[in-house]
């Protein structure tokens, strides 16, 4: 008997505070695929907001404790491309000596969710938890940071019960950018308007992303304009096999 893969789930701050249902779906999905899911206690945030705003001393302190938390993990699964990028790309440079070595080891074992499903588990076929047409927004850090465009698409194309269409300008930023969206809110919103116009032009019922930041931005805009289109995390369109109905993901906000 070969040992079941073990994965530690890094929920991320946005995932923990705002989208816990996404985390639940990921845990159930992974378990159904035979993965033993661990959840190291004491998680907070990867530190990307601190890092991107230039507060590198603080970011290093956060990195140090995150590296220690996940020290024993066989794999680390992250639901957001930007947080995965932070761990893989920036942690080692923030630390030194033995801590840096540990950070490098962690970097090699950390995977964004779609990458873990496709590249580590080799799974591409899932039943769709939503019907109709869906499209995909490339989050910047996943696409240009981790150079990942294929894994999410493979999963979406492989969905049983949904039709995948490409999003024009899908590789363009949604305008979130963390603190950018608060520092220059009008510019951030103007960029979002373009993105949402493209999304609506596809005729898709939902736009899928692999990053909680983009989802927060796109959901926020869609909900404010009363759009029927939903912005969903990848995990929300992959049925976890727990016998959920087609509308696995309830729309948030909107005109309700």
């Amino acid at each position, binding site marked *: 008997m070969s040992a079941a893969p073990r994965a530690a789930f890094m929920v991320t701050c946005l995932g923990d505070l705002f989208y816990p249902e996404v985390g639940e779906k990921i845990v159930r999905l992974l378990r159904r695929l035979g993965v033993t899911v661990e959840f190291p206690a004491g998680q907070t945030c990867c530190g990307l907001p601190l890092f991107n705003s230039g507060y590198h001393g603080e970011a290093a302190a956060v990195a140090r404790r995150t590296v220690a938390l996940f020290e024993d993990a066989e794999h680390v699964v992250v639901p957001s491309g930007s947080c995965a990028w932070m761990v893989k790309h920036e942690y080692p440079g923030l630390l030194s000596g033995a801590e840096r070595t540990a950070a490098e080891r962690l970097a090699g074992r950390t995977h964004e969710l779609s990458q873990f499903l496709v590249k580590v588990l080799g799974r591409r076929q899932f039943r769709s938890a939503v019907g109709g047409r869906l499209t995909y927004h490339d989050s910047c850090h996943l696409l240009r940071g981790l150079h990942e465009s294929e894994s999410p698409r493979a999963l979406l194309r492989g969905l049983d019960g949904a039709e995948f269409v490409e999003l024009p300008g899908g590789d363009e930023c949604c*305008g979130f950018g*963390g603190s950018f969206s608060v520092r220059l809110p009008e*510019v951030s919103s103007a960029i979002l308007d373009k993105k949402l116009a493209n999304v609506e032009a596809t005729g898709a019922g939902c736009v899928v992303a692999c990053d909680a930041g983009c989802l927060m931005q796109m959901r926020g805009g869609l909900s404010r304009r009363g759009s029927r289109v939903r912005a969903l995390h990848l995990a929300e369109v992959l049925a976890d096999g727990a016998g959920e109905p087609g509308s696995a993901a309830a729309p948030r906000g909107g005109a309700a």
Partner: protein
Amino acid sequence: MSEVAPATPLRERAGRALEDTFLQQALTIATTKFIGLRREAFDEFPEGEALRDQARAIKEATLQRLDHWLETLIDNIERRGGHVHYAASAEDARQIVLDIARRTGSGMAVKSKSMATEEIHLNEALEAAGVTPVETDLGEYIIQLAHERPSHIIAPAIHKTKGQVAELFARELGRETQPDPEVLTRIARAELREKFLQADLGITGANFAVAETGTVVLVTNEGNGRMVTSLPRVHVAVMGVEKVVPSMTDLTVFLAILAKSATGQKLSVYTSLVNGPRRGGELEGPEEFHLVLLDNGRIKQIAGPLRESLYCLRCGACLNVCPVYRQIGGHAYGYTYPGPIGILLTAMLNGPESVKDLAHASSLCGACADACPVRIDIPRMLVELRKEVDERRIAPWPERVVFGALGSLLRRPALYRLSARLGRLFQRPFVRGGAIRRLPLFLGRWTRTRDLPPVAARTFQERWADLAREGRR
């Protein structure tokens, strides 16, 4: 002397740009076109990716021995009878050009498009000294007529629609015409032809200078560059010191990717190799040739955090793909060089204080680094600039307090969990139908156009115990 800081805050400048419907229309059309053309050019040119790596390597190697290559360049230009001047600052560069104008009795200078001369604000200095500068690149000509400054590195009038240009020509030149680019170009051409013949001084920038041959290289599309370098008696080229390349072979690498990145052309229409003043037996060319090597903060950055920005070819590709530039255009940046690379160059020329706000005018989406022909990691350096702003305590104190508090919160899980509970209390009056539609203070900046999700009734961490139990069943 540094450039003057803009009078209004960045957010206000950006806001004005967003409300300018002409600007929005012009930017969308032009940048979308540039993006498509660049993509096609590289799609048809599979060796392009390897050449980008090679170009980057040449830039890096040249910087490592910049003193050597500059000396070689100077020797070879002087051997051909040209003069080379070193300008430590913008002020020095202006003085050098003014001295040449004065000594040669030049009353009018025709100019080919040059960001280096924009950087040193040469036109204002020439005017003050009684020398009339005439921009001869069509885009530059338009903005000079409009008393504006370039809003893009290669397309200075990108912010204007053809209708606006027709109105400008009617007002400034007394020529009523349809907004037809061809007709407008003919009008400009006729106006400029006279100037080429009258001018004593021709002023250009330089895209490259080849050290081993002493050749100054101009990459242009309109032919005005050739007129500027061959008709007037005196030619002065102003060039940043980092633009030197060792050999002609190196030059070919850059020429193969520059126009593709800038306009999607395989090559620009004109690539002019200027080899100093007219020599015996030659029929054209200036009697005097001067190269002004402009430092203005560059050499210091060879050992600085912005080193990579010295690789920049000034192609403008990063502007075209930048979601922020595409929304606010070049003028909102407030300095000579706009766009992602412009923020770095502004910091290099005017110090990190000048970009304490601009360093944040990026979502760090990385499209710029992707488009850059020499793969400058612009987002990385923007983060470095933000770090420098933080470390020098230039950032406003409320921001430092917020991020300091965030830092301690994220290091202490108990405090983090407490803040989730406090968040639920705080948000209670603002949640409507499962979303937060309005928040007070600076958080209201988010909710003016977007809903915010409330902190969940039970966070994931609070749900984990149940999930763990479910897993054991």
